[in-house]
């Protein structure tokens, strides 16, 4: 059982609306319009909806909470500043996640950040498995994955995170990180290959589990 104090970021934007995606979009567009008009409380609501997702994007790249905190705040600040130019018909989430990813990568690139980097910081933690038998193996696999992610460069983590977690297209990733689509493709491929090789011993079990019942 995970400690209740942890904030699970694997869920999408919160709070979830029971009325369905269309209603959420309308409510969100209203919030954004009001935030754009200067209503800070409306903007605060937007922050509440996206903070976990933005934080997840940031922490996966920068690997340290204090740095991710800075990136998250900065991302929301910039989004707020740019709200006037933002097309309200576009989804807000991917947009701010791109901002956050760009900030995160740039932050990790700064020489000072490299000095401060904690080599063993794990942004991710392994969650307990569903069944005791597979739990141990999966816990190890996740730990290994966390380590392998740690060993990637920030740029590689950024493309991987934006693709796998935020599900941005290559074009969107390219725009977010200000690189070419070709670079996205090769970086992502290399990142995935490293992870694949690192997890190879465990992947048999993982793949079998997926084949059995689609995991969780």
């Amino acid at each position, binding site marked *: 059982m995970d400690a209740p104090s942890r904030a699970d970021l694997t869920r999408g934007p919160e709070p979830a609306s029971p009325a369905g995606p269309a209603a959420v979009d309308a409510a969100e567009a209203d919030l954004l319009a009001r935030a754009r008009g200067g209503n800070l409380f409306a903007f605060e609501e937007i922050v509440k909806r996206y903070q976990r997702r933005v934080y997840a994007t940031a922490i996966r790249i920068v690997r340290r909470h204090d740095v991710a905190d800075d990136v998250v705040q900065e991302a929301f600040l910039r989004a707020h500043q740019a709200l006037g130019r933002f097309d309200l018909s576009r989804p807000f989430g991917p947009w701010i996640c791109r901002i956050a990813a760009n900030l995160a990568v740039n932050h990790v690139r700064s020489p000072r950040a490299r000095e*401060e980097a904690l080599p063993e910081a794990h942004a991710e933690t392994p969650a307990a498995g569903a069944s005791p038998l597979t739990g141990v193996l999966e816990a190890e696999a996740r730990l290994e994955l966390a380590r392998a992610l740690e060993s990637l460069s920030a740029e590689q983590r950024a493309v991987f995170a934006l693709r796998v977690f935020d599900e941005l297209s290559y074009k969107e990733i390219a725009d977010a990180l200000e690189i070419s689509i070709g670079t996205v493709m090769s970086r992502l491929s290399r990142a995935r290959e490293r992870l694949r090789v690192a997890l190879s011993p465990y992947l048999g079990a993982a793949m079998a589990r997926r084949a059995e019942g689609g995991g969780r």
Partner: protein
Amino acid sequence: MSGHPGERLSAFLDGELPVSERAEVAAHIRECAECARQVEELSAVDALARELRVDAPEGYFDALPARVRARVRRRPRLLPVAVWAAAAAAVLVAVVAPLTLQRTRSLAPSAAERMAEQGTAVPPATVTSAYATPAPAVSPALRAAGARPDFSLPTSAPAEEARARRDVPSGRLAQRDRAQNAMTAPRAAPALAATAPEPERLHKAVEAHGKEVAQDAAATAPPPPPPAAARPAPAPDAFAAGAAAGKTEDEVGATRVGSRDEGVPAAKGAEAARRGTAPARERKPVAAGRVLAETDPAILADRRYQALLDRRPASVAEARALRDGWEAFARDRPADARADEARVRALEAAITAWRLGSDPADLARARALGRDYLGTEDAPQRDRVRALLDALPPAP
């Protein structure tokens, strides 16, 4: 297609291959067990990654929205300060020299007034000419006011120091000078007392953001003929007292004036002088356009931090100013990853100030900074701070 798709498997997985290539790779995978397995594994890696939890400290998301809101609310005020600071820094190079003369003429009366108050008879013309021409016109006044005739010329001092002595002093000096007239020995240097009233904001802004940039600017500013004799400003009583008061901007000016007695280079005076000579209010429209190109707070913060890092204080005033600069950074950007380092560096600068000037107030300030740091929960650099404090004399 001959051979394995290699890197394209990843793009294939994401559906990002062009249609024709996609068909090729799909066909290959059907035939090639190895590549088929790799695609499967890549997909499994994705799935496993998605299951990874990412945790934040307890209560983090409860507090974050309000923190963001507070920063958004503060934001509009940050820009003008940054614009001020950068505007000030940007224009200082261009305007120091001509401005010195211009300012002087308009200031001469007030300087003369002050001197009249102090019972020193100096005709305005004398003060004016102190800047336009070499110093002899002023030195008689100084001597009359009891100044020491032995003014060591800046032959061995750094170029900055020479320029400091030449430049018009800061407006803060003027204000303090007026305030401390009662304490001031008659030898308050007229040259240095003839100061430009200066926007308070400019001080703070320059200090906060543009100091070292301004210093570099001063270092490269073309030197007008130095009336070296006009420079020596032995008013240690007035300004040393002011220095002990603990106000940074005052200190800078005070120490600059009194530094010769203290034996500390007056390089910092260059900075104070430049502040005095730049009426940024007039120049703001000109420079603002250039400066507004960079309003990104993250980049400004990086520059600010780097600028602080680059400084090497060589005087008490510089060290105090650096201490305040680091403190301000940590205070302005508490969530910055570098804020902790800024706090420790503030302490180091405070200690440097004490070591350079032996002023007990600096020692007390350093101790206070150290205690505050150690009193912070989870302070990451306790050992480093303790070591710094241990090297100081024991507290009474």
